[in-house]
């Protein structure tokens, strides 16, 4: 029984933290979906960022995205991406809108835009860090698999949320 909807800040703070922990876990470690191309995989951490965006008040969702993804970066040996991550991931949150349903046309399109803009921003960051924008461009194009997978997972989970009365109850409005 949530007391989310009553003005309890502690509850939202804690929920944001737990979702950050889930973003960490799914970005770095579990439920990676292997993809044929170049033996890589898609992590579903971004799908969790998208879900946070529709569950939490926007400022909290932005913090959640930054905290979760940053922890994953420093743990999986990608600490150099930590700075771009804490700037880019919160921006992705802004493409979603809280409404009656999670899976709305608005949010599906939002997730596509989040994927594209996220990729472009990371490409710029990568260009700066590795010092060659061509290389960054090619690497990011291959990396487009990532946001596509995240959108799909977001939609599947969003449907499950929309159908589940108990989950729905926790969505902050």
């Amino acid at each position, binding site marked *: 029984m949530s007391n989310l909807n009553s003005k309890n800040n502690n509850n939202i703070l804690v*929920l944001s933290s737990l979702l950050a922990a889930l973003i960490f876990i799914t970005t770095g470690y579990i439920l990676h979906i292997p993809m044929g191309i170049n033996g890589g995989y898609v992590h579903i951490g971004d799908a969790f960022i998208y879900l946070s965006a529709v569950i939490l008040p926007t400022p909290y969702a932005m*913090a959640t995205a930054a905290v979760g993804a940053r922890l994953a970066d420093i743990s999986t040996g990608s*600490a150099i991406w930590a700075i771009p991550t804490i700037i880019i991931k919160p921006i992705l949150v802004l493409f979603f809108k809280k409404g009656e349903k999670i899976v709305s046309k608005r949010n599906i399109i939002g997730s596509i835009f989040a994927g594209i803009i996220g990729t472009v921003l990371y490409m710029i960051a990568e260009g700066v860090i590795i010092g060659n924008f061509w*290389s960054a461009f090619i690497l990011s194009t291959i990396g487009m698999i990532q946001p596509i997978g995240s959108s*799909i997972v977001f939609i599947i989970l969003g449907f499950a949320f929309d159908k589940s009365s108990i989950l729905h109850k926790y969505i902050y409005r």
Partner: protein
Amino acid sequence: MLKDITVGQFYPANSPVHRLDAGIKLIATFVFMVSIFLVNRFYVYGIVVAVLAAIIAASKIPGKYIIKGIKPLRWIILFTMIINMFFIPGEVLWALGPAKITVEGIRQAFFMSIRLILLIVGTSVLTLTTSPIALTDGIERVLSPLKKVGFPVHELAMMMTIALRFIPTLLDETDKIMKAQMSRGADFESKNIMNRAKNLVPLLVPLFISAFRRADELSMAMDARCYRGGDNRTKMKEAVIGKPEYTAVFITIVYMAAIIALRFVKVGI
């Protein structure tokens, strides 16, 4: 086993670098990263490498941990080297049809690779010598001036602490739910990507419900323990800024000054 995942890459040791205040380390690392972007001649890297090597030696971190840090990015480094070699115009060394390797390309390839490696190693030193908890405290202190403009620094630090605290718990939970659903015939290893994505539902819906329930209970426990945000809150462990910290700041300033000065020196390659 999922339980064994450690957050961060902390390598515990008793060294002056480990003991140094995390906030200072954080700022120093940031300065270091900026400094690398200011280098425009090969020989200046010599200074950077020397400083970094001295810090690593002082930190007692075995070399193999440093190398392990570079490994995940080795393909990106290699790939970027090749792109640099072929795509920078200049004096042609070797050509095969449209593909040309130039002298400038080779120079650039090495220059950028060294820069990237130094960036990776520099950040690794921070994460290897600072536990995630100390890092969280450090971030809170470094950002604390932002409190004045209303940025929720304390809340952010609290979020990091709680996230760190619950990562092992949620991993454990994931493991349990996964096993329970596997016992009911769920297949999380399906080759079919769509199937695999769909199988996330029986795992993630219970995981979310559990996270929500935990959030309810934990926030209530925090209420009961009089948590009301960062105002008027004290800390048991206060940061001690002592001689080592002042020394570190001094070294950082001298180092940065040297790098900036060398940028404008017009000798060498």
